């Protein structure tokens, strides 16, 4: 120890930077970091903030061009009250809830079974199918909505909420299956074998071992399915026409814009309430939300 310090004292290291500046450098870097963050937080949070501001204004205040649009002078909950008591907003909200719950349930059942089979029971074509699942995930909804429009029409499901429940899984199942394959594959093989020796059959193995062990993954996959179903816009836009059948994403616009009369206060209130469920899920289950998002990168 002492030998080392003597050497350091005797032979001065070549100085490429000012000695002793590390602390100062780090402080400046941190200040710069916070400044950059502040700028982006403002940029990122302005639209939701403005949504909130507008939703609290009366239509009179919105139309008044003389004031500062970023502040509310006389806040009111009138927009929210009207939305929840008149018109179809509540119906749209319930429709969104029904579709989303159904789709999440269907998605999880399909993808858990498929992922269990694909990760644990090798069978003819299983690797090809796993690749196929991933490729399906890369198919965007804008590629196939027109043939689906025809197919839905052919099934007599045009302008029917059921059509959403039928089609949304194409957007959710591939990715959730992919996530679940990753989670199941990370369960050590010895666990199955121990269960096999303990006397479990395949369903008991799935139900008593795999599902409990992969619960964080299941939660992440459910959150993913939930956000995708809740946010879907193109399919309801194309396949739903009457207001009672609509879900939130399309309902707000279709009901609150009459010709060129925009009820901005109500639109913003409706939008904010529509954004609330995913925001709440995100706020309370942030780690699972992020795990689901990044699963594609870290697991696959």
């Amino acid at each position, binding site marked *: 120890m002492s030998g080392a310090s003597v050497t350091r004292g005797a032979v001065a290291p070549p100085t490429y930077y000012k000695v002793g500046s590390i602390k100062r450098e780090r402080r400046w870097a941190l200040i710069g970091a916070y400044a950059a963050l502040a700028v982006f937080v403002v940029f990122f949070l302005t639209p*939701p903030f403005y949504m909130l501001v507008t939703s609290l204004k009366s239509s009179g205040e919105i139309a008044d061009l003389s004031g500062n649009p970023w502040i509310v002078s006389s806040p009111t909950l009138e927009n929210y009250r009207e939305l929840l008591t008149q018109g179809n907003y509540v119906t749209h909200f319930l429709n969104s809830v029904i579709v989303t719950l159904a789709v999440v349930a269907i998605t999880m059942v399909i*993808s858990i079974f498929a992922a269990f089979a694909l990760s644990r029971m090798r*069978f003819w074509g299983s690797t090809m199918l796993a690749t196929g699942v*991933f490729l399906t995930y890369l198919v965007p909804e804008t590629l196939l909505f027109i043939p689906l429009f025809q197919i839905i029409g052919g099934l007599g499901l045009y302008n029917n909420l059921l059509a959403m429940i039928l*089609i949304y899984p194409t957007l959710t199942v591939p990715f959730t299956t992919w996530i679940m394959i990753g989670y199941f594959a990370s369960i050590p093989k010895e666990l199955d074998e121990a269960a096999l020796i303990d006397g479990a059959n395949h369903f008991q193995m799935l139900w008593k071992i795999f599902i409990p062990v992969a619960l964080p993954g299941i939660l992440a996959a459910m959150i993913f399915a939930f956000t995708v179903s809740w946010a879907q*816009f193109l399919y309801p836009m194309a396949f739903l026409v009457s207001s009672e059948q609509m879900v939130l994403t*399309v309902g707000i616009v279709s009901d609150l814009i009459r010709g060129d009369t925009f009820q901005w206060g109500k639109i913003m209130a409706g939008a904010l309430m529509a954004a609330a469920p995913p925001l709440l899920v995100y706020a309370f289950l942030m780690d699972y939300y992020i795990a689901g998002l990044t699963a594609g990168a870290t697991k696959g």
Partner: protein
Amino acid sequence: MADGNVVMARGMPAAVAPPQKGTLHRIARRRSTLAFLMTLPLLAVIGGLVAYPFFYALYLSMLNKRMTRFVGIDNFTFLLSRETFQAVIWQSVLFAVSAVIAKALIGFILAHVLHALPAKGQRKWRGMLLVPWVIPPAVSTLAWWWMFDPSYSAINWVLTTVGVPPVAWLGEPSWARFSVILVNVWYGAPFFMIMYLAALKSVPDQLYEAAAIDGATGWQKLRYVTVPMMKNIIAITVLFSLIVTFANFDIVRILTNGGPQDKTHIFGTYAFQVGIQSGDIPLGSAVSLFMFPILAVFAIFVLRDVTRRNKEMTG
């Protein structure tokens, strides 16, 4: 001495060895049947609602408008000859490429800044920065639409206050293009940030320590440690985002609906307008299908990177 313990075919018929096809075999067979049944719903979804519609789209795109006659590739050649459609191709490429570049850069910067923060504050900042990605774009775009409103624009109010002339955000073609890209960047940059952050966290600290001892400056660490370690994730995220952005619908549809003068139409919105709104199903299918070769190329690259990453992580 060893032989005493090994029983040599004691009272066994000479041919004990024929491979026995018994219960275990049947179990194995039943197992693959079971596996097939378990994947059946998945196969039904992929086959019935992805593969079949795809081929159906191919068929549809080769019919005439009333869907009474087979016209071959006429729809495709017709589209290619139209100036509007040529513009749609160009606009889609412009939209996707510039938005993805901006998202990737902003995401990269934010991920780095976040990563440099002490762990305690990181969560809070990350939480706020991911909000644009969490709100359904069909909903958040409404707020942007309202902020871009020609007469009530709150952004213009700020501009006027600081002495800059107001902008016709959605009224003038080049500004409208800028606006849809801006909103897309706003929505998508957090995704890049979170992906990069996950990748950054997976780079072992020892590598940076080793690089620091080797005399690397901050910039050199970024160049020789961070970027090579993250290369694959960057590639996957960029390719994935290119696909999604290229095929975007929500933002353009709500903000401009393709206008002014079709100057912001991209494949998705144009297909919707042609196929659903104007009722020309075959032509709309053809518009959508034009995306396919481009998407397929991206998808092949994603798949390649994903397999490579899998190999790296397992091997």
